[in-house]
């Protein structure tokens, strides 16, 4: 499934394209998620008194990677890159009073939003891999980012006293509005094979992709402006 763009065609740069349109579209979709994550961690790690020192260092490592992902994708996209949208990390669609209103004053809320972003990010990249098969260099780079997002997800889950892996489609101790991030992860049909049974290990052993449409629905509350 081709990703829906957050932006109208008129807002896209019209310069000569170095990358095929469909590849650039996928990378701009990824860039949007990386913009979302990078600014989130920049703000959180930069907010004095929000995070205890040991946890802050771990989030700083994640921050470093998300900032690097933004820089890398922008470099690959060149003139085709989209610009950064405005975000509302409370999940209030720009009203700054969403369900995560204390995201930058309460470390528990900050970590919860971080888990939501990382588990979403890993599933989002997974859903786009097949759309990058025509360009092996870009595909491999995307896979290399994908596994870093999964490492982040694992660590944030451990910080939050959760298992590193997703059991069935459980959101664990996250609030109900995050459930779409986990929907579909209990899938036990892989390729052409059904693999039912085997307790929790079957669902835990396979992370499931999200379509771009599902991802955009998940992140929509965090966008302050929708072009």
């Amino acid at each position: 499934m081709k990703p829906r763009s957050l932006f109208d065609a008129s807002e896209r740069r019209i310069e000569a394209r170095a990358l095929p349109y469909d590849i650039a579209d996928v990378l701009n979709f990824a860039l949007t998620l990386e913009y979302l994550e990078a600014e989130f961690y920049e703000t959180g790690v930069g907010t004095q008194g929000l995070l205890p020192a040991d946890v802050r260092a771990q989030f700083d490592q994640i921050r470093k990677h998300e900032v690097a992902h933004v820089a890398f994708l922008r470099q690959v996209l060149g003139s085709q890159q989209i610009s950064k949208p405005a975000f509302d990390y409370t999940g209030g669609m720009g009203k700054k009073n969403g369900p995560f209103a204390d995201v930058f004053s309460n470390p528990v809320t900050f970590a919860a939003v971080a888990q939501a972003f990382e588990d979403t990010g890993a599933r989002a990249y997974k859903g786009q891999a097949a759309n990058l098969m025509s360009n092996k260099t870009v595909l491999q780079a995307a896979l290399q980012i994908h596994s870093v997002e999964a490492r982040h997800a694992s660590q944030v889950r451990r910080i939050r006293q959760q298992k590193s892996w997703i059991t069935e489609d459980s959101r664990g101790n996250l609030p109900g509005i995050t459930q779409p991030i986990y929907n579909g992860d209990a899938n036990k049909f892989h390729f052409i094979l059904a693999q039912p049974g085997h307790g929790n290990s079957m669902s835990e052993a396979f992370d499931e992709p999200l379509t771009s449409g599902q991802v955009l629905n998940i992140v929509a509350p965090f966008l302050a402006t929708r072009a």
Partner: protein
Amino acid sequence: MEKQTQSDDWAGTLSGPSSRRQFLQRTAAGVAIVAIPSALSGCHVLGAIGKPKLDFGDDFGVLNYAYAVESLEAKFYQTIVKSPPRDLKPGEFEILRDIGAHEVQHRRFFKRALGVLRIKVPEIDLSSIDFTRRDTVLAQAKIFEDTGVAGYNGAGKRLKLAEFLTIAGKIVSVEARHAATLRDMINPGSRDFAGDDVVDATGRDRALEPLEVLSMVQPFFKSRLVIAGL
């Protein structure tokens, strides 16, 4: 635990390697693929009758490569769970047991998906690993998981069928969760879960070519994995 039964691979309903192969190709591609190059097919027939040959000429070679590595990982964790180190910290056994169960599921998936096209994985020899000590077990687990992640990252581009790439993607992120978890068990609360030794300045994990991964895992197999098509 995996049951090594014939019903596990439901290959008996197909008449032989090449028809199964065509069936898989048809199903995966969603269209009828009329002909499979007989030379490639022959390689897999050889594989099927017991030679541990990995032919990277097509997707089934890549899947067999993953099958071999997942088999090694599964056996490694099964050995730990059977007789865990006495100096594990509280909660660590459960984590290693979970990871092992995931690797068994991965092995089981590839075994069933490949059916008669799967290679015979050489006998696994883990005698060089000291399973009595927490630090050696965790250090080896970390190596296996980091290598697994890098191996999938490097192999993705070799896959021609989107369905197989998606499956590899479903598995590699779980391997990355394992790697990060083991790294955090070894050095808790540090930056090591995604340390600068595995994630570069562009924020990307490692990607290794099959030959690099196979040279790392070969010492744990009693006979040589024959590699072709690279």
